């Protein structure tokens, strides 16, 4: 078996189940009430605009981890591959294409399934598979399409004309949405959405910072918390959920309650987790090691200025994807090194993810930098964030065992 669910410690994880169910239910309700539904890629700064205009957002990529959790991906992959989509393509793409072609039209779907879109945002930016997902879905679902553009610029190279262009795209998106939905964007509502989004980011940062405590109050097994950062930025729901979670985590940290009693090793995880096997994070815990930080969770926290909502969203749209991808290897190395210092990391697991080239490229350089600058050893773990066929759990556990033993031995020598 290559799949396994994570054992979670936080009460927040139980509340999260309700948040997830409500989000998908809201999508179906929106459809039945003839409220416009838009399918959008994450990381492009559009979500706050959607919420401010009362347009229901749906994230096809985010649906893939849900399918993985419910064990539906294997069927979706089979459908997509029969359609001619190569098994070498990103699992998010194959999952959603297969789902839209087949399962979406069935009555008995988990969480009620996805509502059909009235609008699609097709983005010339982000990674190639995301661009292609929306181009494929557009052909299949035939909604009104907004073609957006998002230059992939290394954060250290962003210049005024990049910002001007991103801002122009935001304005163009608003005009499109106003025209298609017949609704006007109220700038006050947008400011409020941006304020809530920024507040969520501040809470998220604070929440993550507690993981630098020894012992860490929660581990990567709770990474599902990120759901609110992906789907609910710009809403009170995200802020309230994160505030409650923060209170719980603060309480645990103040009591010195760790994920495990004997936290011997602190581990960093690079790349997207195995959505079908979040239980792997618990396996580390069985060996007295805790995954206390990861690259992926940092991508969702970009502070915004509510006084300049559109400029903030334009900047966010430029920054999100390059922060975690190979658009800037230098920036990623900097982020990983900083996290490894702050979170007092003993060893790093670099997930060589067949479903995500942009995050995997540069890992050899990250490994070298960690070794040379911080003397932190790395384990390269072959896997795939969506497709369990590209992951061997037994082999992975073997390698994790050897890696953790080596770290413990090295620690004794320090």
């Amino acid at each position, binding site marked *: 078996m290559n799949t396994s669910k994570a054992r979670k410690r936080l009460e927040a994880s139980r509340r999260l189940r309700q948040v997830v169910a409500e989000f998908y239910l809201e999508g179906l309700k929106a459809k039945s009430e003839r409220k416009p539904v838009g399918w959008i890629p994450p990381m492009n700064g559009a979500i706050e605009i959607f919420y401010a205009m009362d347009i229901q957002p749906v994230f096809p990529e985010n649906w893939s981890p849900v399918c993985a959790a419910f064990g539906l991906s294997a069927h979706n992959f089979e459908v997509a591959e029969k359609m001619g989509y*190569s098994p*070498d393509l990103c699992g998010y793409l194959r999952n959603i294409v297969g789902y839209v072609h087949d399962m979406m039209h069935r009555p008995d779907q988990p969480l009620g399934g996805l509502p059909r879109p009235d609008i699609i945002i097709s983005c010339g930016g982000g990674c190639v598979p995301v661009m*292609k997902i929306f*181009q494929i879905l557009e052909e299949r679902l035939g909604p009104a399409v907004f073609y957006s553009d998002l230059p992939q610029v290394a954060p250290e190279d962003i*210049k005024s*004309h990049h910002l001007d262009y991103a801002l122009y795209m935001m304005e163009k998106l608003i005009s499109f949405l106003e025209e298609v939905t017949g609704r006007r964007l109220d700038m006050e509502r947008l400011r409020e959405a941006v304020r809530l989004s920024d507040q969520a980011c501040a809470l998220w940062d604070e929440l993550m910072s507690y993981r630098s405590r020894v012992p860490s109050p929660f581990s990567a097994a709770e990474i599902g918390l990120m759901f609110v950062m992906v789907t609910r930025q710009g809403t009170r729901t995200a802020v309230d959920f994160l505030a409650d979670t923060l209170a719980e985590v603060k309480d645990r940290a103040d009591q010195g309650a760790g994920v495990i009693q004997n936290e011997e090793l602190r581990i960093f995880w690079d790349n997207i987790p195995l959505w079908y096997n979040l239980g792997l994070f618990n396996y580390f815990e069985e060996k007295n090691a805790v995954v206390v930080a990861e690259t992926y969770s940092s991508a969702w926290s970009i502070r915004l200025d509510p006084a300049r909502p559109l400029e903030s969203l334009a900047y966010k749209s430029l920054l999100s994807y390059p922060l975690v991808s190979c658009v800037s290897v230098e920036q990623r190395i900097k982020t990983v090194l900083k996290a490894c210092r702050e979170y007092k990391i003993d060893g790093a697991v670099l997930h060589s993810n067949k479903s995500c*080239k*942009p995050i995997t490229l540069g890992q050899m*350089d990250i490994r070298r930098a960690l070794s040379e600058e911080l003397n932190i050893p790395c384990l390269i773990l072959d896997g795939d964030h969506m497709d369990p066929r590209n992951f061997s759990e037994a082999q992975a556990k073997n390698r994790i065992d050897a890696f953790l033993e080596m770290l413990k031995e090295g620690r004794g020598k320090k």
Partner: protein
Amino acid sequence: MVGYLCTYVPVEIIHAAGLLPVKIGGGYLPGIDANRLLPSFICPYLRSLAELGLQGGCRYLDGIIHAYTCDAACGVFNIWRRNFPPAFSHIIHQPYLDGRQSLKFYHRELELLIENIERHFGTKAGPDSLSSSAGLYRDIRAALARLYSLRRREPAAFTGEEIFHAVNAGFALPPEEYLEMLGRVNDRIAGRHHPAPGEPGSAGVGAGPAGGKVPVLLSGSHLLDPSVFDLIYSCGGIAVDDDLCNGRRSFDRGPETVEPLSAAPEADVEIPGPLREIIAFYRGRPGCPARVPAKKRLPYLIDLARESGARGVVFAVQKFCDPHLADLPLLTAWLKEAGYPSLILEYDGRINPGAAATRLQAFFEMIGGAA
């Protein structure tokens, strides 16, 4: 000498600054050294580049330039910069869309490229030299277009590999010399005796210009293994035109369906003469799937197939190439609807002739019989 990864890099600008543009990577370099820098699931072209760098293959370059196309190429460019630090490097960010603001954005990107080249190399790419380089490359593209039209007239008189090498020579030769060579090649071809059907040297009575072979269009990314042309020929087909990154797409001015710059709504964007021509070429050229959706590629492929007399399309796609692989299901279905069946050859560095031959033969039998 300045290296570049992608044919979206405006070589005119490099040349105008008194530098020689050279496309990095000519062929497939097998090996596992690339694993020191890259995961195994990256396309063989980019893995070959990593091999090349590790072998010290490009130390003579004074700099490298890339134009953002796909994720993997961007990653490899950045990994190259870190592991084989060039004295100069630059990446151009290209708009995905057309329109006034996109054009303004792209114009600023090219100005930045010029500023950075001038600052680093201490040379000048002023309006006169830009204009002269734009003219030189305009002539080269016209000469290549002529070569392709000569092949269309009588495809059996060429091996596809000859044409392929004629295009690829331009990625390394000084453009002035290359233009002269192309002129000589074209004149020799145009002037040579073409045996009539039945005469010695002809393909046979009734064989037609394709020599009795099934004419096909060859489409793909950067072709690493030109033996595919011979393989197609030996299996009963002939490549009468191509839609390859290191083939027609590198010089074609693009589908007629794309409006010329002057007629576009962005015509009022203030762009000085020579840069205007350069921008018009790179914005109008046929799109790579990393830069355009499949539905924008479709009319171009149909036009090429129709004009060249191709009866079908052979896609030679590199393993792990996301942009091409993701387009294929829609593209092949639409081509079929338009009357052009297709065959996909996915290859990892080198085409496996045994496996490919069986499929090619079956494909040519199928589409040849329907003629």
